[in-house]
């Protein structure tokens, strides 16, 4: 994988509106953003109600994912073009899902909804409906998903990248600062994790930095590319952004996203925690 295989510019996306081989998909936690205006022809996915199991803490299984994409009118041959708010956090999260369930052609629009809005590009309020399909997902590819036991075993062995803000890493905040500071979990970070906030990989307009800048960023942070890497944040969406950078843009082979992230790790009994920068 390299940048040109996985990332498209807003210009490219605008030039390809209406291309029948593409399906634009907006992914947000706040679907009211989509309802106020979306890229023409784009369908919406709600990261929580569409992509999470309604009962257990887990994401949708293979059958649920097939049902979702079939209803949204996405077929196995379509090229899925993802974008979203929050600097593409949730679009990157959805990208990871599509890869987890083996979708072949997936692209992310650089800068997502933010760049699109800052450029004052056109948004549509039209209702989008696509004919239902018979989507067939592959079995979940756990080579890109880390679970808690593997994370604990990785302490001091693999690269652990904590992509939260420095204050969350240090244990000063337990959630990103647009949310009330509450939660059962203990503040801090996984021992031996390096803190490379996701935001360091992005420019202010939400676009990704250049490959050279990104390589330097992780090298300076002490990431050893000869080792496997696990990225985590609070609930796994910001770390999807970093997973996308490391695996899809930079082509690092063994990178996993730990979607349990701090809300799981920080609530486990008996696991080691460090605080401070």
């Amino acid at each position, binding site marked *: 994988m390299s940048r040109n295989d996985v990332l498209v510019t807003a210009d490219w996306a605008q030039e390809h509106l209406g291309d029948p081989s593409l399906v634009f998909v907006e992914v947000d*936690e706040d679907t009211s953003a989509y309802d106020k205006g979306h890229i023409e022809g784009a369908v919406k996915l709600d990261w*929580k109600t569409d992509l999470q199991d309604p009962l257990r803490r887990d994401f949708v299984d293979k059958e649920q994912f097939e049902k979702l994409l079939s209803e949204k009118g996405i077929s196995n041959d379509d090229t899925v073009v993802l974008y979203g708010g929050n600097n593409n956090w949730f679009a990157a999260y959805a990208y990871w899902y599509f890869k987890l369930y083996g979708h072949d052609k997936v692209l992310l629009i650089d800068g997502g909804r933010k760049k699109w809005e800052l450029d004052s590009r056109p948004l549509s309020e039209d209702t989008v409906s696509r004919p239902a399909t018979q989507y067939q997902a592959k079995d979940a590819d756990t080579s890109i998903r880390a679970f808690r036991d593997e994370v604990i075993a990785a302490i001091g062995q693999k690269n652990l990248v904590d992509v939260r803000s420095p204050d969350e890493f240090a244990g000063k905040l337990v959630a*990103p600062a647009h949310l009330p*500071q509450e939660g059962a979990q203990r503040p801090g970070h996984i021992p031996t994790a390096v803190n490379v906030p996701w935001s360091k990989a992005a420019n202010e307009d939400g676009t990704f930095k250049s490959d050279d800048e990104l390589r330097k960023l992780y090298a300076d942070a002490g990431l050893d590319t000869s080792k496997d890497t696990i990225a985590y944040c609070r609930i796994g*969406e*910001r770390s999807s952004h970093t997973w996308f950078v490391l695996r899809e843009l930079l082509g690092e082979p063994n990178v996993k996203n730990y979607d349990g992230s701090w809300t799981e790790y920080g609530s486990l009994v008996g696991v080691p925690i460090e605080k401070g920068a």
Partner: protein
Amino acid sequence: MCGAPKQGGSLAGIDLDTQTVIQGQVWHDGAPVAGAYVRLLDATDEFTAEVVTSPEGQFRFFAAPGSWKVRSLAPVGKGERSLSADVGLNETTVVLD
């Protein structure tokens, strides 16, 4: 979860004895700016959070006591404001130019 609550509005239900709330409005040309991107930067200028302003141009963050910078970006321009926050309500206005 990670979705920002609705920006602005009532402070009901927010415990100002424990939360450090930084809130305010984004203005440009004498009027509030809806849909502006507002990010909160920590004392080292590192990104901490980002929200989009309400139709009334309002934003709200839940931070911790200390020095912060609020930076806003919109199609009409950009602006920033530094502030020192304490537990409770901290209000500020960011003007875009």
